[in-house]
């Protein structure tokens, strides 16, 4: 289960996500990120409150990143918790996504 909020900061739409990004929450995560990307040219996903990500959750992030490419929007993943960072590192997501320690705004 996840909770998410949106906030505009210095031209960026910051989507703050909390909870567990598992199969049950994957659709909600993908839709939240894609909806933000449709309405904003710069989207930062703040994952500091995300304490777990499964394969389905990771697929949701990847598909949001794919949508960002199609929409030619800037998309950054920021402030990963240690457990989620471990999954991102294993997946080498930093090679195709902008992954930051801090928010870009």
């Amino acid at each position, binding site marked *: 289960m996840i909770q998410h909020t949106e906030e505009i900061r210095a031209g960026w739409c910051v989507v703050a996500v909390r909870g567990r990004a*598992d199969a049950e929450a*994957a659709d909600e995560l993908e839709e939240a990120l894609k909806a933000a990307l449709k309405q904003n040219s710069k989207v930062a996903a703040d994952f500091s409150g995300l304490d777990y990500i*499964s*394969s*389905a959750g990771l*697929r949701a992030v990847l598909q949001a990143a*794919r949508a960002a490419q199609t929409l030619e929007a800037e998309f950054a993943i920021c402030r990963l918790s240690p457990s989620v960072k471990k999954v991102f590192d294993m997946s*080498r997501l930093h090679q195709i996504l902008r992954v930051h320690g801090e928010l870009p705004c």
Partner: protein
Amino acid sequence: MLTMLEEIVLLAVDEKTGCLRSVREYATAYALVGAVFFDLALARKIDTDTETIEVIDTTPTGNATLDRVLSDMARRTHLKTVEAWIEQLFYGRDDIEGEALKSLIERGILRHQKSKLMWIIDVESYPMVNNKPQKFVADRLASAILGDEIPDTRDIMLVSIAAPCGLLSYVLVEDALERRRRRIDLLCHLETISRKVSAAIVSLDAARRNVIPRMI
């Protein structure tokens, strides 16, 4: 839409002979077994993290192969890793292959042909009736590898199962594969379940190949 399992079978079918190809013994068999996990993951029946695999929904998918595996996974809860399950499913590989071929015949994509080799040995083959689906799968694989965009989830999975099982050599020439080695490696790592399935196949295949010479 075809299942991942059916798409892998199509990749393995030799368009000229109708026989199922394999670059080494069991390579295609492992690809078929791995594809079952991708179908279950795409249907949101299973999920994985860095350690375990779990059934999250036991509602049948309507596909006999997937439902049999799903019900088996729900029942045998002591098997918790992708590698353990791939090893388990490997023993039922002939059923998985047979059911996928039957489905492709029913869809009018392949046909079943029996012939004799040297007038004695029965040979079964599956000549292509409609080669468009095979071309569609091969084109998606080629685009995912040769392009720089983030591919669709199914195509990421397709690359990650085709690569360790040698099926990419049926789609792209060796030079192109060599040039895009880093891209292929990246796609194989992108997704947790893809990475787990691909690593399990490499490990089990290597173990099997190690054991056979020792037995001889």
